[in-house]
């Protein structure tokens, strides 16, 4: 059976546009609002990444750190994250949700228990920032057995042999990190160069769905739209931060931002 993630890419390819993938943090700025945000933005976004916050994130920039901080301050726990997913999936059963976070939370929850919870709430995929290949092999296989996509990451520093091995072991989606940066960095490589690297990877196995993330905003998204998918995260986290500062409703503001992003890749 094709996964919902694979189906999204099939459909997007048919209409010749990249999949729009959003990243928000569960519990930001409240548990309720983060569910409302998912419900709203899922009208425009094709895949939703949902962060489970960690307080010592070694690969996140300021924007996502702030979101994570708010979520943890609000008392978000993994069980709440699964609740949010479950409630969302009740109304949107076909919209893929990918959980993203750091390995320690999975480790403390117990790998098997965590995957059981993922399955029960309807999680479609996982990104574990600090569990690289090949250390992730055992866990990635456990995911596969449960039909949960384990999404491998590639970076500009990944060697060609390594890329080949990772692609071979990948499931339905691979994530290419656009540049040497934490999340939320300014795009310091030109879209042209990012796409050059992207296409080099793509040629190794054109059938694999490869998405680009890190540093993508409303200003740069259209120049990258030949990719299979584009991830926007920090811009959304920043939108929440700014909404709170200006005492505006983060849910409606986020809805607008994601709507605009979508229009730029149609």
């Amino acid at each position: 059976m094709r996964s919902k993630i694979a189906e999204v890419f099939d459909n997007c390819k048919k209409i010749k546009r990249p999949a729009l993938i959003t990243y928000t943090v569960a519990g930001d700025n409240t548990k309720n609002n983060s569910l409302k945000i998912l419900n709203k933005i899922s009208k425009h976004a094709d895949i939703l990444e949902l962060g489970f916050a960690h307080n010592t994130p070694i690969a996140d920039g300021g924007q996502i750190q702030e979101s994570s901080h708010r979520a943890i301050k609000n008392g978000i726990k993994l069980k709440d994250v699964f609740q949010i997913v479950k409630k969302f999936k009740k109304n949107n059963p076909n919209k893929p949700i990918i959980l993203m976070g750091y390995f320690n939370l999975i480790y403390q929850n117990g790998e098997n228990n965590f995957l059981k919870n993922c399955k029960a709430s309807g999680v479609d995929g996982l990104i574990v920032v600090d569990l690289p290949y090949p250390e992730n092999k055992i866990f990635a296989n456990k995911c596969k057995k449960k039909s949960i996509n384990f999404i491998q990451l590639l970076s500009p520093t990944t060697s060609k042999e390594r890329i080949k091995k990772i692609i071979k072991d990948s499931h339905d989606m691979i994530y290419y990190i656009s540049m040497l940066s934490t999340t939320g960095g300014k795009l310091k490589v030109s879209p042209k160069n990012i796409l050059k690297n992207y296409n080099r990877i793509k040629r190794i196995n054109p059938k694999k769905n490869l998405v680009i993330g890190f540093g993508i905003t409303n200003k740069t998204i259209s120049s990258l739209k030949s990719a299979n998918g584009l991830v926007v995260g920090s811009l959304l986290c920043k939108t929440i931060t700014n909404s709170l500062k200006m005492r505006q409703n983060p849910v409606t503001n986020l809805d607008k931002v994601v709507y605009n992003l979508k229009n730029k890749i149609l």
Partner: protein
Amino acid sequence: MSSKIKKNIPLIDQHDKNFMYGGKFGGNFIPETLKKPIDDLTKLFAKLRKEKKFLKERDYFFQTYVGAPTPFIKLENLTDHLGGAQIYAKVVSEAKGGAHKIYGATVHCMIAKRAGKKYVVGDTGAGYAGKMLSMAAKKFGLKCKIFMGAKDIKRQRPNVEAIRKNGAEIVPVTTGSQTLVDAVSECMRYWVSNCDTTHMCVGSTVGPNIFIKICAWSTAQISRELIKQVQEEFGMIPSKLKLINCVGGGSSAAGFWNEFIDTSAQFIGVEAGGPRNSKLHAAPLTNGSKIGILHGAAQYVIQDKEGQIGSTESISAGLDYPGISPLHCFLKDTKRAKYTSASDEEALRAYQLVSKLENISPSLEPSHAFAEAIKLAPKLKSSEVIIVNSCGDSLKDKDIIKQKLGSYNR
């Protein structure tokens, strides 16, 4: 299944193919972007540590720049005062810059040069790791940036001034508890973004495996000197010998014990117990913390049930860290070393006593180790020997000492 220490294999090399010690501590839990720079560094270091020229260079800098050997002295007055075991100190604070962090900093700069990097970055808590890296960077012609928690910048002023004087940039870290744990995180993030041009130095035996190795290998200079000094003093290694060291990340202890691993010497590590009535101990080994992942390595770490890293509190910025080197987790599990903790108050009292009776002035980190020595010595026979690693100079703590004890005399 409990793991065992293998004989005749350096401690840092007792890991499996996944860089795990005893199958459960360490490893490389890192973002994909750091895989290659860490692989490159791992290969480079494996080559350099076998290279005669590199070893000669290291020895040359340790001799002429750091100053080797640092003194090994008997603390006659303290021994008499306590009446029990013979107490000695390895006065590592006499090394250039005033602490053991100079060994790792020097070797990291040598490696950075070999790797063709022009920039080095590092974390610091007490400010010694930062001071030493900035000093070595200046000597080796590298540009240097130091990440330091805002709270530590305030409480370790003399070292902050030294870092600035050496021409390094200090980046204040204002996230989280604004201490060492946040400084290490921010430094790693910086490296993720700049690993193509920049060499990273981790200030203790923590982080991804290669940083543990480089730090412990460099700091082992302490015990290379000490084992000779002990043999000269006693004609052999005393049969009842205790080596007492404070542990924050664990670099000074790893360096102090390294050459004695295959001897009968007992190792005692002293963690920071924090203020007497506080629950925020920086003592994961003493208090039975669970294994978790912090800064790229599995280790005993202070955390909540979810896996959020816990906050800690200690009068000593250098020990104020929720994790602990995987090497020490391994030494604890194999029962090769024992770990305990000393409170802020005990450390201050130890500082007071030692600096009054002896001609040394240990910083608040080694004062934790002295606190344990002071507790133990009276219970032991005079045929027993205690050596404390006096790994840092108190000057950086003058503000805290003045505030807590009323005066700081030097």
